């Protein structure tokens, strides 16, 4: 008998994306360019995070019509974002047939207390996390893939680095702990003992963990991969650069050959202007998207 939407099937989908680059796109043309450049999936959005940041106001799920057009254009998987806690938006995207839903802090949260119960959906979800506690809480809600939050739309990799390093460091701590110590750690992190035991057993998070939020260059992609990312999300970094095609291809190459400086040096040349970046200290507390949904 066929069983659809099992956790293994949802998590397996993310495993097939490993070592790849998922690109934010806002038009059919951009989606086509991303596919041609070697993206493993596209994230269909109305605005890239840096434009969401600039526009202000309430950021919601994109128009299904626009998402559908992108789904009809490319053969690679199509992801789309919903607001944190907005399960009605998620029901719409599942009905539409998107391949993955990002319950994302980039959009304005719809619920400040609860995330979506993702177990109730056949379509898999990815969620952002800044540490192992957030990651395991999202997984317990049904997330089949995790990404760092970073600080979206900044072109500044510093927060993604902080989040990836923190998760890797915490995984190493878990591996070294006895059960009685894990009980205390579980309490501090707000997760279950069983989840920490699972991490200890596997030596890693139980689902794929990508880097996201501020990745703007091939070197950024390589850095995140060397820190232990399973793959890369690029938001504003491609289509806010002066030569999107070249930057997209270069980031794909850099994600594959992340440990080969020779290839990295080659693909990093003559990429034109990168997206203009934002310094973290220039962001007021209220402008920091990573504080949403913890």
């Amino acid at each position, binding site marked *: 008998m066929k069983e659809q939407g099992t956790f293994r099937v949802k998590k397996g989908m993310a495993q*097939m994306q490993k070592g790849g680059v998922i690109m934010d796109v806002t038009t059919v043309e951009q989606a086509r360019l991303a596919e041609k450049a070697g993206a493993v999936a596209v994230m269909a959005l109305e605005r890239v995070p840096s434009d969401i940041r600039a526009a202000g106001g309430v950021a919601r799920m994109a128009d299904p019509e626009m998402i559908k057009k992108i789904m009809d254009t490319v053969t690679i998987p199509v992801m789309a974002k919903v607001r944190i806690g907005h399960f009605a938006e998620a029901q719409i995207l599942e009905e539409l047939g998107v391949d993955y839903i990002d319950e994302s802090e980039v959009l304005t949260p719809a619920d400040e207390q609860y995330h979506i119960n993702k177990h109730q959906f056949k379509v898999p979800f990815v969620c952002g996390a800044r540490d192992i506690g957030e990651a395991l809480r999202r997984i317990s809600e049904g997330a089949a893939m995790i990404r760092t939050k970073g600080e979206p739309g900044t072109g500044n990799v510093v927060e993604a680095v902080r989040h990836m390093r923190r998760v890797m460091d915490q995984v190493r701590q878990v591996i070294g702990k006895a059960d009685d110590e894990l009980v205390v750690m579980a309490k501090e992190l707000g997760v279950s003992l069983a989840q920490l035991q699972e991490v200890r057993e596997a030596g890693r998070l139980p689902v794929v963990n990508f880097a996201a939020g501020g990745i703007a260059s091939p070197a950024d992609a390589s850095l995140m991969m060397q820190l232990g990312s399973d793959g890369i999300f690029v938001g504003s970094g491609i289509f806010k650069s002066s030569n999107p095609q070249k930057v997209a291809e270069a980031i794909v190459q850099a994600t594959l050959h992340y440990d080969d400086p020779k290839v990295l040096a080659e693909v990093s040349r003559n990429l034109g202007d990168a997206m203009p970046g934002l310094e973290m200290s220039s962001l007021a507390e209220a402008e920091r998207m990573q504080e949403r949904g913890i």
Partner: protein
Amino acid sequence: MKIGVLSVQGAVSEHIGHLENCDAEAIAVKNRESLNNVSGLIIPGGESTTIGKLIELFGLAEMIRERSRQGNLAVFGTCAGMILIAGSVTDGIRGQPKLGLMDIQVRRNAFGRQKESFETDLDFRTFNSPLTAVFIRAPIIEDTGAGVEVLAELPEGIVAARQGNLLATSFHPELTDDLRVHRYFINMCKNQ
């Protein structure tokens, strides 16, 4: 005897883990040097357009074709890997990259989008009990040439087949704990 897993993108570590659990010597194949050292190659699931494009860039595709044609490299393609080794792809994108090793015609995403992805029990020729097969945006074999042996079928079509030292499955044996498909491939590598 070393068996390689094409390490471009996709479920690489899962296949390596399974080969190691079968006591085979497994290596990640990223370049021509490492490809030269293996008796068999697994092309894992992932995105076929991405993997196909990247192996063309570094001369890996050419070498896989050459060694396979000479008959000294067994190749096992799972999901995206099956699309890549197929001789023909029904609904590929323009310029769909392929290795074109096996005399099968494949349709991509034949079961629908991700929400239609599924797992099911499956009879696999030569195994004495069904295996749990995980299908993720999986392709299907629509047609086979002479000399292709069908190993497993669903009502929708063929989901596993073999032709000489080539093996293809629509599903992902690397996502369950069952090692029988990997053992089957290891035997193919030994016997070539």
